[in-house]
């Protein structure tokens, strides 16, 4: 089976090489994602009301045979190493209070189940939406008397991946009725359609208007975020959502906002909503 997949990939490569100028076969593949032959992941679903698309499609469908196969096998999925590391962190005491996550939250497979599917959520204390990374930092500061993580620190990515993984297979659904979530959603939507940089491109230009098309060798997806943090083969490591946001914005030749800034938190709220009903895939594997 593996050999067949490799052969298919090689053949596609040859086809692309010999017929480079022919229109590439665009569009998402018609296939189901079943992890380890057991857990079926909802990778296609009807869009929520007010969404520009009829159907939401996970980025998994836009990747190569080999990349999709990696994600379907949790022993081969390199992101699972981060899940394992995250579990160690969960159970290790840190900070002046000498507490671990487990000391308060117990077994993550129970206490964190569903949490990753419902974030970002409104946080009354900071009067803004928080994502999992910010929630971890608040816990570290207030309950563990530990330093917050530096953005994209290896442990931040591993623990975030571990927590979100506890919701794997559960549908994404955030609560916009809490606090001022709706106005953050509005701001995020504005940003989604704002063109940035010298190349003058918005998120929508690629992921709304051109998903399914190739931009050079890259197959544009709908830009759904249900698989984050995501293992990216290009970088050979786990990539956080805000890292990916910044990478996309940088590629338009624009200055990019700070991680967890108001702009990127608003964008996270809006883009997460755009993937409502898709299952959490964390850790997804992408190109």
């Amino acid at each position, binding site marked *: 089976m593996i050999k067949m997949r490799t052969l298919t990939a090689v053949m596609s490569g040859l086809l*692309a*090489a010999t017929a*480079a*100028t*022919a*229109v*590439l076969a*665009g569009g998402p593949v018609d296939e189901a994602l079943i992890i380890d032959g057991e857990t079926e992941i909802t990778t296609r679903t009807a869009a929520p009301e007010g969404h520009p698309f009829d159907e939401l499609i996970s980025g998994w469908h836009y990747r190569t045979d080999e990349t999709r196969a990696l994600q379907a096998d949790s022993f081969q999925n390199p992101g699972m190493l981060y899940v394992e590391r995250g579990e160690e962190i969960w159970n290790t005491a840190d900070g002046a209070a000498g507490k671990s996550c487990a000391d308060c939250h117990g077994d993550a497979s129970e206490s964190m189940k569903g949490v990753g599917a419902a974030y970002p959520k409104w946080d009354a204390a900071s009067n803004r939406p928080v994502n999992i990374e910010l929630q971890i930092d608040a816990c570290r500061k207030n309950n563990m008397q530990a330093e917050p993580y530096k953005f994209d620190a290896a442990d931040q990515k591993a623990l975030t991946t571990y927590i979100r993984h506890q919701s794997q297979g559960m549908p994404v659904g955030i609560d916009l009725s809490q606090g001022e979530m709706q106005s953050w959603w509005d701001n995020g939507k504005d940003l989604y359609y*704002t*063109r*940035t*940089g*010298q*190349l*003058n*491109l*918005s998120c929508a*230009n*690629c992921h709304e*208007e*051109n998903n399914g*098309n*190739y*931009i*050079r*060798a890259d197959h*544009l997806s709908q830009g759904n975020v249900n698989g984050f943090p995501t293992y990216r083969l290009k970088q050979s490591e786990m990539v956080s959502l805000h890292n990916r946001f910044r990478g996309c*914005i*940088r590629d*338009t*030749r*624009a*200055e*990019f906002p700070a991680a967890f800034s108001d702009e990127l938190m608003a964008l996270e709220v809006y883009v997460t909503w755009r993937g409502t009903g898709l299952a959490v895939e964390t850790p997804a594997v992408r190109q």
Partner: protein
Amino acid sequence: MTKSLIYSLAVATMALGGTALAETIAPDAVEIVDMEVNASITGSAGNATDGRDAFADRKKGNCLACHANSDLKEQLFHGEVGPSLDGAADRWNEAQLRAIVIDSKQVFGEQTVMPGFYSLNVGINVAEDFKGTTILTAEEVEDVVAYLMTLKDN
């Protein structure tokens, strides 16, 4: 070579550069009329061979990111965001191609995804390194236009 000689050479080079620039039309001074720019924006004809390079160069035109082009079939992976440019010169005249490369939004409308390659009417928060600059220089625009004029099916 003495320091003063290097200095004089530098001044001479700058003077020459200045002369060439005087004939070049600045990005915000280019007038697109009826979807056309009739005259070369450098005052001279472009070089199609250099244009082919600029077309393919990912740091310059990077045109293959979005367009297929059989003439560059040695390059892998042609994009499909925009139309194939095979036979572009049969469908557009030189003045139209020049206008499209300079600022396609004035030809196809504000909604087009295609960047303006010689326009300062761009997105917000332009990165420091690119502020006030255009994707292509005037000379590169003319080179790319000269190259596009070679893409004929008939």
